[in-house]
């Protein structure tokens, strides 16, 4: 039995019992419950919030009246439930174990049978293949039989047949055959008798087919053994070549053994009792060891419908089949031929009968065991629950009677277990309950009064009202006829003035009595004040008689007044009354002090308010001054940003002026040279016309020049060495022509084209001088070249102007799709003179990835590139290498600008994006460049990072392709607005961000 189960059960049970008890309590009539909390209104005047319960006044009996009837069926229910729980706890594992055991028995028996069948199949197959090998070995012996070989070698077929016959006697069930080297059967023997047409002795139908593959293989020198289907019977067939010592092929021998009863019986013999063997040809049973009850041999079970035997690959399959009323588990394995093709099946059957018996025996044993266990569990649980519930029932009865209010009930449980402890605890609890109940009632009464008074005095700040309510309450609670409070005024000795009176008016005259009490220095209780030696004079003076209690009101050991209560009758005050009065006295003293303090605070607060008003005016003045300062500072910052922009513009203009100037100057020079050329061209034309060439030749010459013009515009000039060589070659080519030397020199100035057209010129002039043609060609070539150069120069200027145009669309450009590469290229053009004219120049390397267009403010982005590249150039002092790397990552575009400058120290690097932070000398920079960059990039929703070490500083800008987040502000306002105005970092002393 599980030790946990009963405890779990009992806890559930106790929960339900609690529920039933509460439901019973709620069924009791509502009247008594309501009555218990009925208000006694008017008892205490000051409070409307708290009403003391009625029972407080009645002392302690019958507090809790639970009328729970004890029902007899409840008791026996507990025991029944407990015993059911115990039985269930015992049965649950029993059932589970039984199921598992049954499943295990089932599966292990089934698996056992399966395993037996598979094992049998493995053994049978091993034996079978052993027999196959024996056949092969037999054939081998045949093939190396010297007598047979000799007979074959000599061509004596009779001798060979006789020898084959002799050999066949040793293996009665085999067919022996001999072929010649072409595969023709020359002898066929079985059981010692040979006949080429042998049919008898059960060997019929074993012959191999014409051109049998086994024989063909043997004639190709291969030794083969295979399982074959020969006329719907399976046979083992081995064949091998017959050769002489020099490997001359003599024929082949073939040995065939049928797989029949003999074979399966031999396999069964090795497997032992209860196992059967069956061989299938294809899927048809062919021979088996199964016997019918009559003793007749059965052909074997047919394969179950649709049953698939695992294919070649070694897996076995097990199926259940019925043969002659017996159930068997059969493991099937493929029988394959030498090409691994399936020719049949081998099955090993295991009789299921003994296993079925074992199975049912196992299940019966299990069932019997379960029944016995069940019986035992019921008996045991009954016994146990009886023993366990008896003390519980006793305890239950006792607890109920205590709950009913009978605190004298004794619980008669004294077992030595937890229930016994519980009963003892009940006894102790009942005793202390009784004691506590009595003390509690008295104490509660006092507390409530004190609470009332306290509440009254602490909620009122007017002293007179406080005192009045106190005397009223006290009078009520203590049951006096007159009560008064006198306050001490002045000192040494103080004078006592009555400030509050309740009840009889005699109270108003108790000033002297109060003084007398204060002289005593402590609370006083007297049954008859007129007889009290210390108080008698004052009492008589006031006309007060009878029992009196009085207490000084002290606060922090200072006497502030006295409270006096008189009964004017016979009933004396008790000690409890005095105690209560003293308690009141403390409260009253506190109230008096509170009232006094309140008055003082009122006076003080008025002074304070006046002061606050004065300070507020001062603050307002200071505030307006701060505002003005802020405004001024903002204006200064705006100016700074503007000057940063102007600085950039200056830089720009300087660069562009230079870039434009160079080509312009070049054009200027060329134009000067042109007029000279035009003059020389006139002379040449004149010389040409003077030559007197036929018009067709002249036309051909100009046609030639027209064709060459475009090429001449960009044709290279020859070096002087090349020119000399060309002159030499042309002179040779022109040898004998008029003006050859002059023409060669002039054509050298034309360049390689001159040499190319030389033969044509030579042909054109015929016997006339070559010089005018060459001269004319030279001038035209010069003109063309000049035109080409001018075109290049103008192209350069246009490129710069174009870049400038795009670049300078600074602020007005709207958000658009921007090609980042184009922006960088424009910036590089703008900055090109800085790049070029540093000390040794700056090399710019581009490692551009493929980028999508980015949504951005193109002008602002250009400002970023300008700042970063300009910074890099300055950092490197105008010489070094800038690597601009771009790539696209996720939905971001990354532009990295890397320089080979000396790097940024770590303390500087952390601050370079702060506005006004600069390492340049005062006046050289505003310190806003990088911070504007950062603001622009941030505005676009991107980030700038710097990573620096000596020799490599890398600024990496990451921009989202989608562009800036919605509702962007113009950059200057955003930048200025976001900077903490009063916390502008001082311009750095770090000077060496080179």
């Amino acid at each position, binding site marked *: 039995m599980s030790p946990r189960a009963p405890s779990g059960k009992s806890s559930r049970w106790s929960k339900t019992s609690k529920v039933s008890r509460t439901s019973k309590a709620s069924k009791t009539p509502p009247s008594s419950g309501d009555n218990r909390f009925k208000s006694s209104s008017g008892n205490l005047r000051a409070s409307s919030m708290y009403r003391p319960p009625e029972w407080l006044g009645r002392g302690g009996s019958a507090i809790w009246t639970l009328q729970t009837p004890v029902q007899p069926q409840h008791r026996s229910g507990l025991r029944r439930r407990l015993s059911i729980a115990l039985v269930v706890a015992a049965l649950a594992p029993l059932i589970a174990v039984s199921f598992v055991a049954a499943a295990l028995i089932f599966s292990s028996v089934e698996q056992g049978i399966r395993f037996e069948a598979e094992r049998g199949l493995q053994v049978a197959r*091993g034996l079978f293949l052993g027999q196959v*090998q024996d056949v*092969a070995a037999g054939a081998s012996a045949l093939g190396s039989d010297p007598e047979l070989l000799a007979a074959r070698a000599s061509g004596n077929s009779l001798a060979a047949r006789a020898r084959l016959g002799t050999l066949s006697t040793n293996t009665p069930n085999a067919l022996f055959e001999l072929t010649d080297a072409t595969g023709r059967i020359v002898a066929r023997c079985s059981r010692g008798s040979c006949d080429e047409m042998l049919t008898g002795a059960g060997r019929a139908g074993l012959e191999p087919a014409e051109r049998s593959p086994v024989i063909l293989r043997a004639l190709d020198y291969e*030794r083969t053994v295979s399982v074959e289907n020969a006329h719907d019977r399976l046979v083992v067939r081995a064949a091998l*070549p017959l050769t002489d010592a*020099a*490997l001359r092929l003599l024929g082949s021998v073939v040995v065939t053994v049928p797989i029949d009863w003999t074979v399966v019986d031999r396999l069964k013999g090795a497997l032992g009792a209860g196992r059967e063997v069956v061989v299938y040809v294809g899927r048809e049973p062919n021979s088996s060891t199964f016997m019918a009850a009559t003793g007749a041999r059965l052909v074997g079970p047919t394969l179950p419908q649709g049953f698939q035997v695992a294919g070649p690959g*070694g897996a076995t399959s097990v199926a259940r089949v019925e043969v002659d009323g017996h159930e068997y588990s059969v493991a099937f394995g493929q029988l394959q031929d030498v090409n691994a093709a399936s020719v049949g099946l081998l099955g090993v059957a295991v009789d299921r009968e003994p296993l079925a018996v074992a199975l049912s025996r196992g299940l019966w044993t299990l069932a019997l065991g379960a029944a016995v266990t069940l019986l035992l569990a019921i008996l045991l649980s009954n016994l146990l629950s009886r023993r366990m519930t008896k003390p519980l029932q006793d305890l239950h009865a006792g607890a109920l009677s205590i709950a009913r209010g009978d605190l004298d009930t004794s619980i008669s449980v004294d077992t030595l277990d937890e229930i016994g402890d519980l009963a003892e605890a009940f006894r102790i609890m009942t005793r202390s309950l009784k004691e506590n109940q009595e003390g509690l009632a008295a104490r509660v009464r006092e507390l409530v009064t004190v609470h009332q008074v306290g509440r009254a005095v602490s909620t009122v700040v007017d002293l007179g009202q406080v005192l009045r309510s106190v005397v009223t309450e006290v009078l009520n609670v203590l049951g006096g006829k007159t009560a008064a409070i006198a306050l001490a005024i002045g000192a040494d000795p103080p004078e006592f003035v009555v400030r509050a009176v309740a009840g009889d008016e005699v109270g108003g005259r108790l000033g002297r009595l109060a003084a007398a009490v204060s002289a005593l220095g402590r609370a006083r209780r007297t049954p008859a004040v007129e007889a009290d030696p210390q108080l008698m004079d004052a009492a008589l003076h006031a006309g007060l008689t009878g029992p009196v209690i009085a207490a000084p009101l002290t606060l922090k050991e200072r006497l502030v007044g006295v409270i006096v209560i008189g009964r004017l009758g016979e009933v004396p005050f008790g000690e409890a009354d005095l105690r209560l009065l003293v308690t009141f006295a403390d409260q009253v003293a506190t109230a008096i002090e509170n009232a006094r303090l309140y008055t003082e605070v009122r006076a003080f607060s008025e002074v304070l308010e006046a002061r606050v008003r004065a300070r507020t005016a001062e603050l307002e003045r200071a505030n307006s001054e701060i505002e003005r300062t802020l405004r001024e500072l903002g204006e200064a910052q705006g100016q700074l940003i503007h000057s940063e922009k102007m600085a950039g513009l200056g830089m720009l203009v300087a660069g562009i002026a230079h870039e434009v100037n160079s080509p312009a100057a070049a054009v200027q020079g060329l134009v000067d040279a042109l007029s000279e050329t035009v003059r020389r061209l006139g002379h040449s034309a004149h010389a040409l016309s003077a030559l007197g060439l036929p018009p067709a030749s002249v036309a051909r010459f100009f046609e030639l020049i027209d064709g060459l013009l475009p090429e001449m515009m960009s044709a290279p000039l020859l070096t002087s060495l090349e020119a000399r060589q060309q002159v030499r070659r042309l002179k040779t080519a022109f040898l004998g022509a008029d003006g050859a030397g002059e023409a060669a020199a002039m054509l050298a100035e034309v360049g390689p084209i001159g040499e190319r057209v030389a033969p044509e010129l030579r042909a054109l002039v015929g016997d006339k001088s070559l010089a005018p043609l060459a001269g004319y060609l030279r001038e035209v070539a010069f003109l063309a070249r000049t035109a080409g150069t001018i075109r290049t120069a103008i192209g350069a200027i246009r490129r710069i102007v174009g870049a400038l145009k795009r670049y300078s669309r600074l602020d007005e450009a709207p958000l658009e799709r921007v090609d980042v590469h184009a922006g960088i290229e424009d910036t590089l053009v703008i900055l090109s003179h800085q790049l070029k004219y540093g000390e040794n120049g700056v090399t710019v390397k581009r490692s551009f990835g493929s980028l999508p267009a980015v949504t951005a403010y193109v002008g602002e982005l250009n400002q970023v590139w300008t700042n970063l590249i300009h910074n890099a150039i300055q950092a490197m002092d105008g010489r070094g290498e800038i690597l601009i790397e771009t790539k696209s990552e996720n939905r971001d575009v990354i532009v990295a600008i890397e320089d080979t400058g000396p790097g940024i120290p770590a303390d500087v690097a952390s601050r370079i994006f702060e506005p006004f932070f600069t390492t340049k000398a005062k006046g050289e920079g505003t310190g806003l460049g990088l911070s504007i960059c950062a603001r622009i990039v941030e505005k676009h929703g991107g980030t700038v990072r710097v990573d620096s070490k000596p020799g490599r500083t890398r600024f990496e800008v990451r921009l989202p392709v989608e562009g800036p987040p919605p509702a962007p502000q113009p950059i200057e306002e955003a930048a200025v607005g976001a900077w903490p105005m009063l916390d502008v970092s001082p311009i750095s002393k770090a000077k060496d961000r080179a």
Partner: protein
Amino acid sequence: MLGAFPLGCKMAQPLPGGPADRLVVARSTDAVSLDPARTSDLESLEVAEQVYSRLVRFSPGRLEPEPDLATSWTVSADGTVWTFELRPHLVFQDGTPVDAEAVVFSFERQIIPEHPNHEPDFVWTRAYHNIRRVRADGPLRVQFEIDRPYAPFLANLAMGPAAIVSPTAVKKWGHEFGRHPIGAGPYRFVEWIPGDRITLERNPTYWDQPARTRYLVLLAMPDSKQRMQALESGAADVIQQLAPDDLPLVRLHPDLRLAMAPAALVSYLAMNTQRRPLNDPRIRRAIAHAIRTEALVKLIYQGLGIPAIGPLPPNVWGARSDVVTYPYDPAKARALLAEAGWQGDREAPLKLFAPSSASQYMPAPARVADIIKHCLAEVGIKVDVILSDPADHQRALWAGEHDLALHGWFNDNGDPDSFLYTLLDSDNTTGTRPSNIAFYSNGWFHDVIGMAQRTTDRTERERLYSQAQAILAIDVPWVPLAHSKVVFAERTNVRGLVVQPSAMGLYRFAERVQ
């Protein structure tokens, strides 16, 4: 599981792991030593192949070098300096880092006789004699200086003896390192019960894909019947050195299957070209014509070999199939003999040396010798067959006592040079262990082979080797017999076994499936 043990197996210690965790390989012979510097036998080299990594290794199924410990390599313009970059962060199985120093150590202990860890019985010292210097250039770069441009150098670095060993382990075990091998290969050494088994376990720190099967057990089973039984019963998953007579059984058994590498070995009848009468090429040609080579290969190899026409197996690059051949033609043989003045019966018998036991390249050498004897007898050449055990046979061949000899070679590095230079170049006719046992010496052939060694251009080398094979076909220093296939048998539930043309198993990918 006990039933799965073969009957002959010593039951002293169970095999490690469960059946799915191990691959059991039965081989005919135990290893000799597991120190790669000491082993030249196939069984030892096969174990070393599993335990050690080399700078380069042969790709599966082919003998082409691919990166192993080295990720890349370059060769200097003059072909004499080879620089290898090593794979970083690798460790040996004992935790020693695999670095340039370890590579230098692995070679220096073999090639420098004065090295503190050199042993006199190191067998490969001569094979690497062309290495002038091995130098570490930084922690992960090694440079080899060789005495002349030598193209097969890379392939040689993929061979067994080029294994990189843990210097710590070698220094610790000294001469005993062969019993405590530590490398960086796919398997680590666990245990060696001499004469019984070697157990290896998957190396978790191997740089490439870890081995599929946790344990690799290599059993030594000299009896081929016993190996076959072990395979049938499942006690072994793979067996080597399958007897030809067991082939039909494997074919007929549905649980078993052949695993073979393409024909990669060569067996040949070497003719002593330095001695009369076989110094006359006409007589050598006559012998080639007189032997029924094709029938012999079919009968002896039973489908596990193909007739050879030259030294190079067809799957080795550069192999040529269009050279002059000498098919069986006794009439032509007789004519050639007559032309050479062969005196027939009056000539002294030729001594044919043959090993008495089977080898990877020839299953029945005695039978082959007998067939050759009878074939030659038919054309009037008398032959005395001298059978001796493999060691004596080898010694006799080194001494040049033979006229004719049966021999064979396996492709150890996939380079044609391994066949042509080793077996036929005049460089290898001298010394105490000449590998050219035909003592064939032809200046032209020697020049061609030398040129092919000095260039690393594959096309050029193919052209040169083609020329060399043509020369051989004319000179006939051998009668090439067969290229035998390397045949293993495995159970059909074994997957991923690769039989390398070098006759070794590649077990990294092998596993047993259910």
